[in-house]
């Protein structure tokens, strides 16, 4: 009899320990990365690191602006491409589509979300890169190798669609049917009911889903790195190559221990990603809870 309660006690402790360990993970990671990147703060100020454009690790110059701007560029580009598709597909699936179509679409979204980043990268190299260099670039009268910010944006957009769409579906499903009925009964067309009531009612949720999508795009590494060209430059031309922050970390882990401060700089990049993404997540998750728990 006694044994049962001892077992109970032990398991209970183990459960609590696991939970606390998992929850303190971001903190541990943040502290770990901070300790590793601390040396660079003695060398350069945070402001210099973020806004500086001079990147020459061998001379000890670490200006992250080319990488940060590339990251922002591909993220925003992917965002612009993904937003309408997600919104429309989310509306169609929750408001109009038949049960059969929904049954087909759920696995489709699941698989799209589950495909590894590297597969999107391979597909991007096979399809998107040639498409950019042979179709899009000539159309805009520029030459491009195809390995460009544009290609990165397109691949990233496709990767983020299932992620944002899943959240949007959840948000749209919380709009009560009675509210839509009320709008229709007043003489609205289906589209008007969606526009005036469903979208309006879910607005905070829609914004949150997009915010989280943005954060995901910002941290995505392999697929973007495979198609974006990886050249250090600040460019406004989408047909030029870029070099996003995660790609910087992934590409240089091999040599970072052989150059002084290089490892601190790269760990600072990781810390920057962690902090930005965690903050975006915390803010928009909060909104999404507010929006769906009514």
């Amino acid at each position, binding site marked *: 009899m006694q044994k049962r309660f001892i077992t109970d006690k032990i398991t209970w402790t183990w459960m609590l320990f696991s939970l606390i360990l998992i929850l303190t993970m971001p903190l541990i990671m943040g502290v770990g990365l901070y300790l590793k990147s601390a040396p660079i703060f003695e060398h350069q100020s945070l402001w210099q690191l973020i806004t500086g454009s001079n990147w020459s690790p061998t001379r000890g110059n670490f200006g992250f602006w080319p990488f940060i701007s590339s990251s922002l560029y591909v993220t925003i580009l992917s965002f612009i491409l993904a937003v309408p598709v997600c919104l429309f597909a989310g509306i169609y699936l929750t408001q109009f589509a038949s*049960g059969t179509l929904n049954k087909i679409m759920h696995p489709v979204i699941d698989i799209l979300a589950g495909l590894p980043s590297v597969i999107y990268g391979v597909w991007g190299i096979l399809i998107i890169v040639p498409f950019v260099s042979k179709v899009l670039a000539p159309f805009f009268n520029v030459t491009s190798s195809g390995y460009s910010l544009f290609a990165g944006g397109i691949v990233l957009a496709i990767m983020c669609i299932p992620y944002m769409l899943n959240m949007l579906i959840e948000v749209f499903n919380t709009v*009560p049917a*009675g509210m839509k*009925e*009320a709008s*229709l*009964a*007043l*003489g609205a067309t289906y589209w008007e009911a969606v526009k005036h009531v469903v979208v309006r*009612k879910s607005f905070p949720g829609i914004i949150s889903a997009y915010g989280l999508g943005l954060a995901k795009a910002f941290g995505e590494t392999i697929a973007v790195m495979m198609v974006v060209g990886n050249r250090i430059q600040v460019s406004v031309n989408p047909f030029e190559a870029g070099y996003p922050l995660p790609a910087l970390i992934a590409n240089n882990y091999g040599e970072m221990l052989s150059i002084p401060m290089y490892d601190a700089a790269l760990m600072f990049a990781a810390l920057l990603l962690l902090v930005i993404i965690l903050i975006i997540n915390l803010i928009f998750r909060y909104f999404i809870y507010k929006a769906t728990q009514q």
Partner: protein
Amino acid sequence: MIPYIIPSEGTNDLGHDSDLSLRGNGSQPVVRVKNLNVFAGEHHILKNINLEIPRNKITVLLGPSGCGKTTLLKCMNKLTDLYKELKVSGSIYIDDDDILNAQGYIPEIRQRMGLLSQRPFPLPMSIFRNVSYGIKLKGISDKKLIAHNVEKYLREVGLWEEVKDRLNQPATSLSIGQQQRLCLARGLAVKPHIILADEPTSALDPISSKIIENLFKELKKNYTIILVTHVLRQAVRLADNVVFMYYGEIIEQGPPERLFNEPATEKLKEYIYEGN
């Protein structure tokens, strides 16, 4: 279409739309349901319903929960379209237009009916815009005209004095009883001549319920009201015409005096007995 007008100085047009009763021709039933069948998968929810709703009376659809009253009401407004699993066949004539097989424009037929649901669903916008929404859908854009009509219909449901200083607040800031009256005002503002009410008092407190019931008694001078309820006493208080439903069928219908005093079927007798 009945025009929206601002009356000239001196006349007071904050009362009812007197011209509503001119719609259609006098003695003809306002709503006629013919051979209506509704299936949800294998379930036969409504079994061959035939029904005529008389003008300017309160017709009560009475019956136990789950007998198909609400579905019947939603068919009249063709809101069954929202539920893909429902298969609807038959005809429902609103005046002379068959809404289920309409050639015309469904939103315009729907505007002949105001809907009041089981619990109020204010649209996600301000109090003012909740009422102006339907008016704008009719293509009215003149600000003064809209403001005049918003006031007129809020007065008609006795809400104007309570909300006139907070018209721009979200409609959800109102109490639930006020919300239900707002929904009624919103429905009346598109100038329907039929009111479809689906247990409109079931979520309300007794005082708010009383207000709605009294409004209905007032409104039936100008509107045809179809009220779904499972509360026998409410039916007794309000009905001019009673339709008793049981498991997707109409069992009995007629004037309340006859149905409640000498019910012809066992089912209704039982229901009245339980209700008392």
